[in-house]
């Protein structure tokens, strides 16, 4: 009798232990759940992932082996994407298997938050990706997603060198040439940039579309991050420069009073626009600029349809980068093999990545492939009037540095741009704008403080 009781007890204890330990399926799941904030990766996935079969009417994709891909897209603004993502990550361990997030995308602006958290998978230790496979990636794309204890937590298909996209027709009229090398001379540094802005205004054009266009060129070149070790806000002199320049431009009419992504900003990229140029990154050319440049979106995208062929790119006054999207595997994912395959195919496979660049002008994260295209005399983008823009960026892509990022960058950028816009337009003084910035930032992130010393 005693023996029976003891063995029953052991069985019960054993079952309880099994139930309590974190055991979950790590592979073989039927649904791949991907979280993103826009459709850019969705487009790339559907067009270039070899296992992709078709898209069903309810928005999910079907892979060749029968796996269903479920996309959950929440826009980025006002922290909506991070809010939703955080909720899901906090619930991951108790969520139903098919509901678990497998992949989520992150941006440079808040990458550190997830990279240093327990919610991201180590792509080498957990997924089995090797250094050899990653060897052709640009170093900075790996540095940003390396956690403080040295684990690599994500991977990207893009390098995102910043550029200045300009209107060839306006360049011809005002500068006398549309050749990228010559135009670059006119915008080689900020002083020259300001001078050219004056010339543009005299000819009836505006240099930039809005207030936030030049922001990242300045903020990426800060000498230190926004937030220091004491959670104090450090205002770099580049930011002050941006504020001064934008105030001057707004007062003198060198911009059209737009904000990034608003409808004026979009329409200024089209045939009716009077803006000389836009600070963009390589992903933006296909994702946004191309569509906006057409006069008739229903007609094929070719020369003759609006501004197709009239845009060129130049390096601009400083090296910078804009965003970039990283693919992260989520802890508790039940599809590790598939996640690994998606990462390998889309962020390390030379042929696939070369094709992405050829098709979309995106600068992909493969040094060898980019070098090939840069040196290929035949390669040029029809949209950019035949220009080989990859050549322009091979150098600068190597030089991108992400030393000055903090996990709070998205909140700080949104708050600063909103607060300063009031100053640019003349609604408030500069002091009030800064006051609003600190007040509103404290609401978003209670732990951040104004620097008192």
């Amino acid at each position: 009798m005693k023996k029976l009781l003891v063995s029953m007890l052991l069985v019960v204890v054993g079952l309880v232990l099994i139930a309590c330990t974190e055991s979950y399926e790590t592979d073989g799941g039927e649904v791949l759940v991907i979280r993103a904030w826009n459709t850019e990766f969705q487009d790339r996935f559907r067009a270039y992932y070899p296992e992709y079969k078709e898209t069903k009417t309810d928005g999910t994709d079907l892979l060749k082996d029968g796996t269903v891909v479920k996309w959950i897209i929440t826009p980025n603004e006002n922290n909506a994407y991070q809010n939703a993502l955080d909720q899901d990550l906090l619930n991951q361990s108790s969520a139903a298997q098919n509901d678990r997030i497998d992949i989520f995308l992150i941006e440079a602006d808040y990458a550190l938050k997830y990279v240093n958290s327990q919610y991201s998978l180590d792509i080498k230790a957990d997924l089995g990706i090797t250094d050899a496979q990653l060897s052709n990636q640009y170093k900075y794309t790996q540095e940003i997603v390396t956690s403080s204890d040295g684990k690599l937590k994500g991977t990207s298909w893009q390098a995102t060198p910043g550029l200045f996209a300009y209107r060839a027709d306006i360049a011809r009229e005002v500068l006398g040439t549309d050749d990228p090398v010559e135009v670059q001379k006119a915008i080689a540094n900020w002083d020259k940039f300001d001078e050219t802005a004056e010339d543009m205004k005299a000819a009836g054009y505006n240099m930039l579309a809005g207030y936030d266009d030049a922001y990242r060129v300045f903020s990426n070149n800060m000498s230190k991050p926004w937030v220091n070790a004491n959670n104090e806000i450090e205002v770099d002199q580049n930011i002050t420069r941006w504020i001064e320049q934008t105030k001057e431009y707004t007062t003198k009419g060198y911009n059209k009073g737009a904000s990034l992504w608003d409808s004026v900003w979009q329409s200024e990229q089209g045939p009716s626009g009077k803006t000389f140029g836009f600070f963009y990154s390589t992903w933006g050319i296909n994702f946004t600029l191309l569509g906006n440049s057409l006069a008739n979106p229903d007609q094929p995208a070719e020369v003759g349809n609006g501004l197709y062929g009239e845009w060129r790119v130049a390096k601009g006054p400083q090296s910078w980068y804009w965003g970039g999207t990283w693919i992260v595997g989520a802890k508790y994912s039940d599809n590790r093999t598939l996640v690994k395959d998606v990462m390998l195919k889309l962020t390390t496979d030379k042929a696939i990545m070369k094709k992405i660049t050829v098709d979309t002008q995106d600068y992909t994260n493969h040094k060898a492939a980019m070098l090939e295209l840069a040196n290929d005399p035949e390669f040029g983008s029809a949209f950019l009037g035949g220009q080989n823009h990859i050549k322009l960026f091979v150098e600068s892509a190597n030089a991108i540095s992400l030393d000055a990022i903090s996990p709070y960058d998205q909140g700080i950028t949104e708050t600063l741009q909103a607060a300063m816009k009031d100053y640019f337009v003349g609604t408030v003084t500069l002091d009030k704008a800064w006051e609003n910035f600190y007040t509103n930032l404290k609401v978003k992130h209670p732990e951040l403080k104004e620097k008192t010393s």
Partner: protein
Amino acid sequence: MEDKKKKKFNNNMYSKWGYIFIAPFFVIYGIFSVIPLAMTIYYSFFEYYFSMGLFPVGPNFIGFANYTELLAGPFWQILGNTFIMWGMGFVPQIVISLLLAVWFTDSRLKLKGLGFFKSVIYMPNLVMASAFSMIFFMLFGQNGPIVKALFDAGIVAENFDIFDTVWGTRAVIGFMNFVMWTGNTTILLMAGIMGIDPTLMEAAEVDGASRSQIFFKITMPLLKPIFIFVLITSMLGGLQMYDVPAILTNQTGSPDNSNLTIMMRLQQYLQNSSNYGMSGAISVLLFIIGGAASLLVFRSLIKNDLVSLDKVGN
């Protein structure tokens, strides 16, 4: 004799049914409102938020620190904003509603098509506020038809944006509130006017009073209860204003935080850092302000109702 029997019938045997019938209401209210309200008040005395949305900080007891931080900050400005936005809609609303109510109930004017006009004026009350705001955002936005027309007519400069101006944005919000609520107020005032005893009017007429004298000295005072009702309910609604300014300004209350309402600030505290401490404190302040305003309505309405409750009950 019969009365006594009736009373007995009612009071003793069936009173327990009263408790049964009202139980669901109170149970659900207890679970979904009373307990959460207690939690709200409780958290307001704590520092409790999620750094970057992921890493919990607290709960640490900090007494009234949240309240002092709030009251030392732009809270009064935000309250003022809320009041201004409400007032800019309510003032035209009450004036026009009164005008319409008087016209619609005036038989001598022999107005036709009243049904149509009433339907049109009431309709915006049922339209989704968020969709309504989206429409106005696009219509009055920088790239929209209204600004384009103003620019073509030479009234505004090139990069003009109504939503860059404090009072322009407030005017649009006030206008939206006006359109959404005038119909409701008109119907209520009409009912009030039609409920006025006609003999009063006739007596005044016989005494030689002019129409405007009748209106100001008899009609208006008799409409006072309805005025108070409309005023208080509108004020309470105004305190909680959220949808319209939130969608219009994309939850920022721009420009210069001048179109930020209390509820919008509350949502902002929850947005990035799930700050239960601060949002709890704001909720309590809202509770106190709403409660103070509601004491007014308590006095005018409840007294009458308690009297009628007694009358009806027996």
